[in-house]
């Protein structure tokens, strides 16, 4: 594998790991990487996880909590002074009081949760610390798309990006950018204005690909979609150029040389620190995938998501954890792939959703299992927004879900106002996961039939009842307890 970090970075990582190992002797620390592309539900997952642990939610499958061994879970002061704190309180308030999902995340934030527990085994209870720190990191999912770029040169990036832009499913959206590109000579003199214009059309094209109707995922570089605090800086003002894969080095002063320089600057100043600070030292990882959003948009979106996940997942370092090796280098020894928003489906279809997810993340799973990490796949809803029901209508029995759709969502021309509750049957997932990846070309080019056989609405967060003391009950969920058990359960035995 090509080395993604340079020697200095590796040395810094090793030092940090040594320091961590020393501090782990006092209270062990577990870095849980919540991974997922934009809108996969990372913020909601972290909020629900923390809320359920702190408030003792219903977690029957999570052994430590169900067995009464978990005495307390509480939030620590933010450990890292340079990173903002994850705004847990306001996310909970938005979910519970206003019944709104969190806004999309714009910057990195961090949270440390401490769990106090008693081990089930006598020795560990006597000798162990009885505490576990869990570090959770939230970040814009778009940025994850940058990780594969670390392994690519500018020429490779250009060729791949243009190949995607010219593909049949994107040609229409990319037309303005391609038109702008055709007017530029890579070996001409560098000009800031045309660089900005080209970069601007490139960004517009990437943003358009993300719209609900296309729902594409493989859209690097990620900062072009969610710039953070670097907006407008030269490192974010570049675009792919029409150059061959094995082009000779660019002459200085040419437009191509400028673009190449900026791409390298992007890698050095943006991607590498992000990767080094947040992803290179993970112990456990959960990969959240919004399969339903891609299913809504059709086979193209799914295939794109598959490619993006495959690229992203191979950037991590899974592997079996050994006691001695873990002193100097960390490996992710457990990876959980979760199809989020499983509450938008009836439970009968959860197995099929898992099958589709397995197919989507096949590359990443293979990579992780080959390296010796433990892998699991499940359908998850960190916050369950719906209830289940059966609808008898027109001679059919339909497994439906009850919930309040978000304002603006609609079925068959009906728009909902975000107040009325409906019963929704979203369509059957196919038994064969392969079929959702196939375009139905024989029927019609824009595949109207496919669109009409599956439709997933977005629902508002659930309304929660208060107990007699005025306390809100814990957030309902689907399989969050199983996810927690898989991710941290073995550390609390």
């Amino acid at each position, binding site marked *: 594998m090509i080395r993604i970090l340079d020697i200095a970075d590796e040395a810094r990582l090793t030092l940090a790991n040594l320091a961590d190992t020393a501090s782990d002797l006092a209270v062990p620390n577990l870095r849980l990487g919540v991974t997922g592309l934009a809108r996969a539900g990372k913020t909601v997952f972290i909020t629900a996880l923390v809320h359920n642990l702190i408030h003792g939610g219903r977690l029957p499958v999570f052994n430590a909590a169900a067995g009464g061994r978990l005495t307390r879970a509480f939030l620590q002061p933010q450990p890292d002074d340079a990173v903002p704190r994850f705004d847990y309180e306001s996310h909970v308030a938005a979910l519970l009081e206003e019944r709104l999902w969190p806004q999309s995340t714009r910057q990195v934030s961090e949270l440390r949760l401490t769990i106090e527990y008693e081990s089930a085994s006598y020795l560990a209870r006597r000798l162990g610390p009885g505490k576990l720190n869990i570090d959770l990191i939230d970040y814009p999912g778009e940025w994850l798309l940058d990780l594969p770029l670390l392994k690519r040169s500018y020429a490779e990036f250009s060729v791949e990006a243009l190949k995607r832009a010219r593909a049949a499913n994107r040609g229409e959206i990319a037309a303005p950018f391609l038109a702008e590109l055709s007017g530029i000579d890579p070996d001409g003199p560098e000009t800031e204005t045309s660089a900005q214009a080209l970069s601007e059309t490139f960004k517009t094209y990437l943003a358009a690909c993300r719209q609900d109707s296309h729902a594409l995922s493989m859209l690097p570089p990620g900062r072009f979609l969610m710039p953070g605090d670097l907006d407008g800086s030269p490192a974010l003002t570049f675009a792919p150029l029409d150059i061959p894969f094995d082009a000779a080095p660019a002459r200085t002063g040419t437009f191509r040389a400028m673009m190449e320089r900026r791409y390298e600057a992007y890698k050095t100043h943006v991607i590498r620190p992000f990767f080094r600070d947040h992803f290179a030292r993970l112990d456990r990882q959960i990969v959240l995938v919004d399969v339903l959003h891609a299913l809504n948009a059709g086979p193209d979106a799914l295939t794109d998501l598959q490619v993006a996940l495959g690229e992203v997942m191979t950037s991590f370092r899974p592997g079996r954890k050994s006691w001695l090796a873990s002193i100097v280098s960390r490996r992710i020894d457990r990876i959980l792939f979760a199809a989020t928003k499983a509450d938008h489906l009836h439970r009968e279809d959860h197995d099929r959703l898992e099958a589709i997810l397995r197919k989507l993340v096949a590359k990443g799973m293979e990579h992780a299992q080959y390296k010796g990490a433990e892998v699991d796949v499940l359908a998850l809803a960190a916050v369950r927004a719906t209830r289940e029901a059966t609808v008898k209508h027109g001679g059919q029995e*339909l497994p439906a879900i009850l919930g309040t759709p978000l304002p603006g969502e609609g079925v068959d021309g009906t728009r909902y106002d975000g107040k009325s509750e409906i019963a929704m049957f979203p369509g059957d997932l196919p038994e064969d996961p392969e079929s959702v990846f196939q375009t139905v070309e024989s029927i019609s080019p824009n595949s109207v039939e496919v669109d009409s056989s599956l439709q997933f609405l977005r629902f508002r967060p659930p309304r929660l009842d208060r107990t007699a003391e005025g306390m809100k009950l814990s957030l309902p969920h689907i399989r969050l307890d199983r996810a927690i058990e898989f991710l941290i359960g073995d550390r609390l035995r």
Partner: protein
Amino acid sequence: MTDHPNDQRASNSPSRPARKPAAFSLDDERVRYADEDPDEVLSAEALISMAADDETIPRLPAETSKPSKSFSFGKWIAIGLGGLVSLSVGLAIDNLIRDLFARTDWLGWTATGLAAVAVLGLLGLALREFLGILRVGKIDHLRDALTDAAEADDAKAAQAGLKDLIALYEGRPETARGRRALAGHMREVIDGRDLVILAERDLLAPLDLEARRIVMNSAKRVSVVTAVSPRALVDLLAVLFENIRTIRRLSALYGGRPGTLGFFRLTRQVVTHLALTGGMAAGDSLTSQVLGHGLAARLSARLGEGVINGLLTARIGIAAIAVCRPAPFVATKGPSVTDFMGELVQRAEKEDMAK
């Protein structure tokens, strides 16, 4: 809603045709909840019932993995001889009543009355035995169903099996808490295997603890009796008696309540189970044997023998637990001989010191 698009998607799911998405507004007057009137649905109406519908997933029947019953001559002999004995008994009674009538009428009537009482009693006994066998069979079925559900991670099968399990313990007030917790879990979206594990932890755990105590006590008693008994025959009788009692108590504990015939069946199952697991537990028994003989050298011979007999009783008790328990051990491995060995050995050593 009735016309299905005959596209590729529809042909890909042979078990049911693809259904189009549909939405129903809950404040619509055409929408009704099922608990009002579950049966009739008007064509324009949509009926909403909150419970999930039942659908079975085709699987191979359980019998496919079991050996088919072979033709048995032994059964013929049993039927023939049993019939002859019953006939002879009937003849004897008939003769007796005739003789009594020949002597005095009232004696004959009394005998007839007594015979009728005996017949009634026999019928009652047969009924109870039959029910006992049914109960034991039901527990076997339940265990098979739950094992399959846990293996296939099939939530629906697990739900169905656990409903039966809760029904089985309905009359046991000490399981009230566990039953309520389990019923709560079943309302949520939890996978099949996890559900069976939860049942084991919440509902069966107290019963398992009690079962372990029963086996432990009987093993201890056997080891003491063997150590102090003057004759081998007394040992043998004591071991037999203790084992029968253990099986009976375990079965009652897990809700089996077998009659006499059911008990014989259970005992046969225990023996079969012992034979089947014997190979697997070879390592286990080796340790116990080596340790036991080492112990026999260390302790007096009698006490060592006592410990070994106690361990054998524990082994039978473990087999009985596996046969009587209405659910498989999924989350835990279940009790093993080593669990009992420590305490038995400790006790024996203490007694040896006291001598």
